[in-house]
Each structure stands twice: as structure tokens, then as C-alpha cells.
């Protein structure tokens, strides 16, 4: 399916900014994200990319600007004019948030099946057998052996935990998923497997995604659009291959030229 010209954006950021007292988190961020678009946000530590992700996912209230989101019924809502309960419901159902550290996104004392089932129950699933069946199916989709369904995530390896976190997020068929350095801290071979999995699932489910990463190789593999941040501001954005193959800004040229060839 190709994006129709008259299609409406899923998420719109308008002049978004965040100050921590007198210190700048990020400012003047504006963009439109459409269904099935994957946007990478790149930049070095402290460039404001995680602040931006927290603003966009309504975990942090912006100091300036607004975020518009097209709900499942087609109505466009200003996120901060919704009630707290509605925002939380969005995050639990229509959105996903994949943390760099799976311990933040999982409940470590609850079984793998329970971790997945919990999100389903948040959208009203009550039949235990059905929930368990769906959880087992999702474990398979993220390449976790189904006989590990009753094990606690703390018995899982780092790569498995990250895949479990992804399953937990995707089980409610969200339309938008936020990812904060999803492959950070994993071995290269584990990273490759996770990237391949993410790529496939994002394409199959036609998910829109915003991926924060400092790794340009991850951005190239996962995203079709990219936004480069420096000192809290967006300095360059466009198609991923365009920005990486023909970077215009000095900082982007530095980033691209700093990739180590293998």
C-alpha cells in the first residue's frame, strides 16, 4: 500500500520544546509522521533525542508546542488536552514503548506469558486460555521457545529480554511504537537478529515508529526517514539514504564520516 496524497498524518509535532529550568532539553521540533513510516532520531548523547521521545510519547509535558495524534476513530486529539487516564490508555494500547533496558519495560517478577498477557488484559481480554494462546504465539513470533512461557524474564538472556519486551508492546496491535536505543547494550550478533526481527515485524504490521539511536547503521537498516539532532535542535532531516549519502550540515557530515568501515 502506498501513502495516498490525501492521507492524514498519524502524529504531528508543532514547535515542540522542553526546558529543564534554564537548561535546554530540545526546542522547535516540528514534523509529521504518517502510518507505516519509520523515523530515526540520531545525535550524540545529550543532543535531546531521548527528551524528544519522552515528549512525543506523552511521558514528559512539553514547555512549548503541541502534539496532535489521530486516534483510531479518526478524531485528531491534542495530547495534553486529553485527560491523564486517556493518555495512559493510549500508551498501553495504541502505542508501544521499547526501552533500551528491558528491565524498565518488563515486569521482572512476572512470567513471560504474564508480561504479554498483561497488555492484552488492559484492552479487555479476560479469557485465560485465549490470552495464553496469544502470548505463546507472540513468543514464537519473536523467536523465543514457547516452552519458556512460564519462566521469569530474569532467567532470559539480554537479547531474549529485549525480544520479550517487543512482544509485550506489539500484542495489542499498536499503530505507533517508540524505541529508545532498542539494540543498545547487545552483542553484535544479537543486535543483528533483533534488527532483522524489528524490520520484519514493523513492515508486516505497517507500524509507524520513532527510533532513537546513536548508531547510524541501525538508522539505515530500520528507518526510511531520519532527523539529526544537536544541542537540542533538529539540524537536518529527510530521507534516511539522502541524509546519510548526501549530508549537508557540518555535524551530520562529521557523524557520517565517523562510521568505522568493517
Amino acid at each position, binding site marked *: 500500500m502506498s501513502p495516498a496524497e490525501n492521507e492524514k498524518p498519524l502524529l504531528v509535532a508543532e514547535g515542540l520544546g522542553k526546558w529543564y529550568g534554564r537548561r535546554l532539553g530540545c526546542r522547535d521540533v516540528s514534523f509529521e509522521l504518517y502510518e507505516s513510516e519509520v523515523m530515526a532520531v540520531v545525535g550524540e548523547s545529550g543532543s535531546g533525542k531521548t527528551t524528544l521521545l519522552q515528549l512525543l510519547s506523552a511521558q514528559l509535558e512539553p514547555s512549548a508546542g503541541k502534539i496532535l495524534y489521530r486516534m483510531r476513530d479518526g478524531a485528531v486529539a491534542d495530547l495534553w488536552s486529553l485527560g491523564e487516564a486517556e493518555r495512559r490508555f493510549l500508551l498501553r494500547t495504541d502505542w508501544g514503548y521499547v526501552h533500551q533496558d528491558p528491565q524498565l519495560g518488563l515486569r521482572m517478577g512476572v512470567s513471560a506469558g504474564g508480561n504479554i498477557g498483561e497488555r492484552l488484559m488492559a484492552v479487555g481480554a479476560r479469557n485465560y486460555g485465549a490470552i495464553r494462546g496469544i502470548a505463546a504465539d507472540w513468543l514464537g513470533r519473536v523467536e523465543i521457545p514457547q516452552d519458556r512461557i512460564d519462566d521469569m524474564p530474569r532467567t532470559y538472556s539480554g537479547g531474549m529480554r529485549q525480544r520479550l519486551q517487543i512482544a509485550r508492546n506489539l500484542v495489542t496491535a499498536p499503530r505507533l511504537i517508540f524505541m529508545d536505543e532498542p539494540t543498545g547494550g547487545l552483542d553484535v550478533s544479537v543486535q543483528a537478529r533483533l534488527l*532483522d526481527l524489528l524490520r520484519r515485524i514493523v513492515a508486516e504490521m505497517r507500524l509507524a515508529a520513532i527510533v532513537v539511536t546513536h548508531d547510524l547503521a541501525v538508522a539505515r537498516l530500520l528507518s526510511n526517514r531520519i532527523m539529526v539532532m544537536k544541542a537540542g535542535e533538529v539540524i537536518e532531516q529527510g530521507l534516511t539514504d539522502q541524509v546519510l549519502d548526501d549530508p*549537508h550540515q*557540518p555535524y551530520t557530515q562529521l557523524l557520517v564520516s565517523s562510521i568505522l568501515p568493517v
Partner: protein
Amino acid sequence: MHALELKSVAKTFVMHLQGGLQLPVLRDVSFAADPGQCLALTGPSGAGKSSILKLIYGNYRSDEGHILVRDGEQVVDVAGAQPRQILALRQRALGYVTQFLRAVPRVSALDIVAEPLLTKSVPREDAKKQAAAILRRFNIPERLWSLPPATFSGGEQQRINLARGLLPEHPVLLLDEPTASLDADNRAVVVDIVRERKRRGAAIVAIVHDDEVREAIADIAVDVTQFATAA
């Protein structure tokens, strides 16, 4: 109506890491291709042939001019289009084949070749069947199809990339040295496929160093040195 038209396209690279060094590459690039026509870009190495293909594909951003690509009833100006317009154009109307495969870890050769069809919403089984047919045509042994190509030989990777790039029938097709380092049999496969596409109305812009292949596919030569900046 042209399938593809470039009007006064210009490109200068600014190298900020070299003290803002300006590197003008192309100016006033203008030419057009009609359905069923194959243009060959000619000129010495470094004249900007590949840069022109990258500008058309939207990989490089042009500084001036228009790059008009026909997509069904509408015409998209790549020079001023939004990212998602360019992505839609690439999905439906614009193909680009180089000799280099950007291998994705863990994805099989068959899936790599079928992928562009899947994004065009071709059903999976059908896409795999077509991918298998073109792999066979490029003489890739069937035992390799289920393996990720990262460990394949250079020539095999190149043929897999050609299969992937040539499988979807795009009305505008850009070819950057598709036959470089191929053996005679596989060169002939490329020539056959390009001729088929021309007969079915594709407009093609190609960079081909091999004289024989160029003779076999090209209708018009466009000398790129005329677009070189006086440096």
C-alpha cells in the same frame, strides 16, 4: 509525455570537514527519456554519471532545477518532494540498480529478492515464485536461495542484487554498471531483461562501460561532460 525529464539540475558538494570546500560537480543537467527508450550516460570516470542517477533517485539532493518522474497520471518533482512522496515513487515507479548488494544480516537470498515485490503488495507466495524464477535466470544455484548472501562470492552477490533490482517492473529504471564484472552468460541475461522492459514501455537511464552491452541496449548516448562545471 516524457517518462523522465531533468531540467537545469545542478549539484555542488560542500565539504564542511575540509573547511567548507566547495565541489561543484554538475550544472544545467537537462535531458529526457520516453517510455521504451534507453539512454546511456557516457563520459570519463568522475564526470558525474553516478551522481546524476543518485539525483534522479532522490539519494542526492539537487541544488537547482527539476527532476520530473511520471508516476501513472501524475508527475513528481523529486527535486522538491517530501520524503514520503519519494518513497511512494520508488515503490511504484522508480527503480535503481547498482552492482553492490547491501546485505541485511540473516535475510535469505530469496527473501531479499522478493522484498521489493512485497512492498508493492504482491502476495507472498507469488512474490517468492517470481523471485525464484529470476534467481534461476541469473544462474544462482537453488541450494543458495535459503542462505543470507553475506558470505556469497562478489559475483553471486551482484547477481542477487540485479535480481532484486530488476524484478519489480518500474516504468523508470536507473542502472549503474549492472554488468560490471559479470561473465558473458549473465551479461546476456541482463541485456535480455533490459530489452524486455523496453518493449513493455520502461524508460531506462544506464551507465554501462562495456561497449557491447551498451550497443545492445542503448538508443541514445548522453555525454555527461557537457554538464561538467568549468573547474
